[in-house]
């Protein structure tokens, strides 16, 4: 594996590691963006109104059951090759954890703070946007980072439809009996997952109010 991974030939060109890494990252980020746009409003709305929580948990569990490869194949059969089937499959994968995290986060916001928000004259949208979501951010990030891990790991299937990404190394390695390449692919995926997670951890630090950090890190008490 080491030999394959550190062979300079594999680090250049349109099929080299940097390109594959970027492709993989691209799939991941766009998927997460789309999933967030779908899942956060849905989870937040249900969390805010308190209605349909049971359905949201059930739905997200049912969605988790969808085998990503099968979805991918099905969409390929219907819509042909290209990135579209990959995104459909990955977005379906990413939605449940983000939605569940958002829902749980909004539900877990201190009811006193929500009550106070209404009490000072915020409208429902204001309550949601200015109080509930900012306070739910740690849990939203929790769901989001979980989703990111899964998407990074699963974006390998893009290779299945001839697309790029690190999955290429895994699939090609398998097909060519080059375990070195396959393992290198797997390691790169894990590495990318760690990096992406670190990235989101940094983003979380930047965007979550210091007031919400667990006691001890938020400053003197």
């Amino acid at each position, binding site marked *: 594996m080491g030999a394959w991974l550190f062979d300079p030939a594999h680090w250049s060109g349109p099929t080299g590691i940097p390109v594959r890494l970027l492709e993989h990252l691209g799939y991941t980020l766009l998927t997460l963006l789309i999933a967030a746009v779908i899942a956060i409003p849905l989870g937040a709305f249900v969390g805010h109104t308190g209605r349909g929580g049971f359905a949201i948990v*059930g739905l997200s*569990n*049912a969605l*988790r*059951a*969808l*085998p*990503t*490869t*099968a*979805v991918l*194949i*099905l969409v390929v*059969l*219907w819509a042909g090759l290209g990135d579209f089937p990959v995104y459909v499959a990955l977005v379906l994968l990413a939605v449940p954890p983000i939605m569940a995290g958002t829902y749980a986060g909004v539900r877990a916001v201190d009811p006193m703070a929500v009550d106070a928000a209404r009490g000072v004259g915020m409208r429902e949208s204001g309550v949601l946007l200015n109080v509930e979501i900012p306070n739910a951010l740690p849990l939203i990030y929790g769901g989001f980072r979980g989703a990111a*891990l*899964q998407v*990074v*790991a*699963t974006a*390998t299937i893009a290779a299945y439809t001839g697309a790029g990404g690190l*999955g290429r190394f*895994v*699939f090609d390695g*398998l097909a060519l009996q080059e*375990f070195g390449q*396959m*393992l290198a*692919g*797997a390691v790169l*995926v*894990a590495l990318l*997952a*760690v990096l992406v*997670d670190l990235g989101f951890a940094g983003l979380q630090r930047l965007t979550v109010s210091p007031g919400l950090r667990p006691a001890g890190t938020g400053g003197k008490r």
Partner: protein
Amino acid sequence: MTWILENWERFWEVTAVHLRLSIVPVLAGFALSIPLGWFASRSAKARAVLFPLANVLFTIPSIALIVITPILIGVKILDEINVIVPLVIYTVALMVRSVSDALAAVPGNVIAAANAMGYRPLRRFLTVDFPLALPVTIAGLRVATVSNISMVSVGALVGLGGYGQLFTEGYQTDHTEKVLAGLIGTVVLAVLADGLLLLIGRLLTPWARAGR
């Protein structure tokens, strides 16, 4: 749907395999994650090691894991173990955190009360901490089970995937109905398992719904 009805026996057969391949790893993974989760709930150092490790394990592509497992543990390439081991790993990776969080959330005053009454550690864990951690643990188990049911399909790669078989076959013959049948089977199985766990959870935790 008609495919399922017309090929009931075949469908039933793959369902059975799918069930076996998902139940075994869930049970084994759950059993493993209890001591690990307990450990993580007690020690920040353990958490600092276990959680990132779980994350990394979780990202290893299942195909890679299925192919490597026989090399690592020395079994035949077509053995079910090669599907089960990766799924156990994924289950543990998912569940360690749930169990740890669940145990950490047991109210401190209840634990103090138990200690004060003279519980010894093991008994306390079995009769106080663990039962109280059940609601959160089961929520995690539901996710892990459902994910497992979904992931079993990758076993099709070595001819073992339960519904995964239907996917490959349906796919190869451009037979959408077969793929759909597998998909429906997976989702129905997952929803049933999810519901069953929900039910078991409710039966095991009657107190959770007591009161207001």
